């Protein structure tokens, strides 16, 4: 029961961060601010969803894979934001 509450709270929080990231992506005025919203949101979103699903993983390897997914998303998000920010900077004057 307590574990169910962990799942509900963490997955809801993860969904909230996806909402925040998507709203930022749609509403923020320029490329770099949108990038800012995106990188904050997707890490935490996936991280919290993975955390919430950990009690339901069923096996040790399943839980490890969940954590690996989160770590990989962290790495990907950090790298991609660097690469895209550089490409955006090189593409023209910043606002």
């Amino acid at each position, binding site marked *: 029961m307590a574990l169910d509450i962990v799942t509900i709270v963490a997955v809801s929080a993860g969904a909230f961060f996806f909402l925040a990231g998507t709203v930022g992506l749609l509403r923020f005025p320029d490329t770099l601010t949108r990038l800012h919203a995106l990188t904050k949101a997707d890490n935490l979103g996936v991280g919290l969803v993975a955390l919430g699903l950990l009690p339901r993983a069923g096996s040790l390897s399943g839980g490890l894979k969940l954590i*690996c997914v989160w770590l*990989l998303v962290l*790495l990907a998000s950090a790298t991609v934001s*660097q690469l895209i920010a550089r490409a955006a900077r090189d593409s023209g004057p910043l606002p």
Partner: protein
Amino acid sequence: MTFALALHIALAGMMLGLAAWTIAARETFAAVVGFVVYGLFLALVWVRLDALDVALAEAAIGGGLNGLLLLGAAARLRAAEAPADAERPGASLRLLAALLSATVAAALAAAVLLLPEPAPTLAPAAAANAAATGLANPVTNVLMAFRAMDTMLEKVVLLLAVVGVWSIAPDHFWGGRPGVRHQADPQGTLAFLARVLTPFGIVVGIYLSWTGASHPGGAFQGATILAAMWLLIMMAGLADTPPMNARRLRLMLIAGPAVFLLVGLGGLAFGAAFLAYPAAYAKPLILAIEAAMVLTVAITLGLLVAGPPERSAAP
């Protein structure tokens, strides 16, 4: 209508929107991004269709190599695409094409939706013979045993595609290296990513190849991930692209089909027919073929994305 069904209709709707965008977008680059996202949704669809093996293949190809190939090409072709805009066919021709396409789509939809109940299936036959190979994954069984000829010829097709890509190169670069030597900043983001991600990727690639015997996964899915890691190292500038005339490279290119062919001929000599595995050795033989295939497919896919030789073999 249940909530789950509504979700699937929404998923299908998004996919159709992306498909239409891929065709209709004004800029080619935007269309390619749409197609890459479409590939992502496709992986979700395959999971929903209970085809996890295919979902893995689609995720590995659609998420990694296709994006690399097509986005790279789109970025390169950007300048050349403006004049092509004028060559759009006229309205009547487009209407005709639309009618033809709609007819084909309607016929296909009708053919699948009007399948007799119960639908035709070969699953019982696959289940009945599963014990012969000792593999628990039915899809691997089909790929490696029941339709082994297809899989072997597929490897030959991959090899022919590499020969085709190489032969596009100017004569004096034959045997040379593809692409430029990428000189990445050793302290830079990409080099960091390549150093951290590659060990992870190699583990996952080998895991997927290995687990394919009993769980969803397989040689092709694992090899695609290995190919992606190799390309990442080359793009980060940590390793040069290989020269095409290297003997070791060419040996690795033919290892998969060669082992497959040898086992097949062995079946002809000692067993009943070409590619008939002797019952006692079926599983070790299949695993040996898969190991050779992982190596060959990884190298082949990497070379296909790397493109034809563009400079001489000297580093």
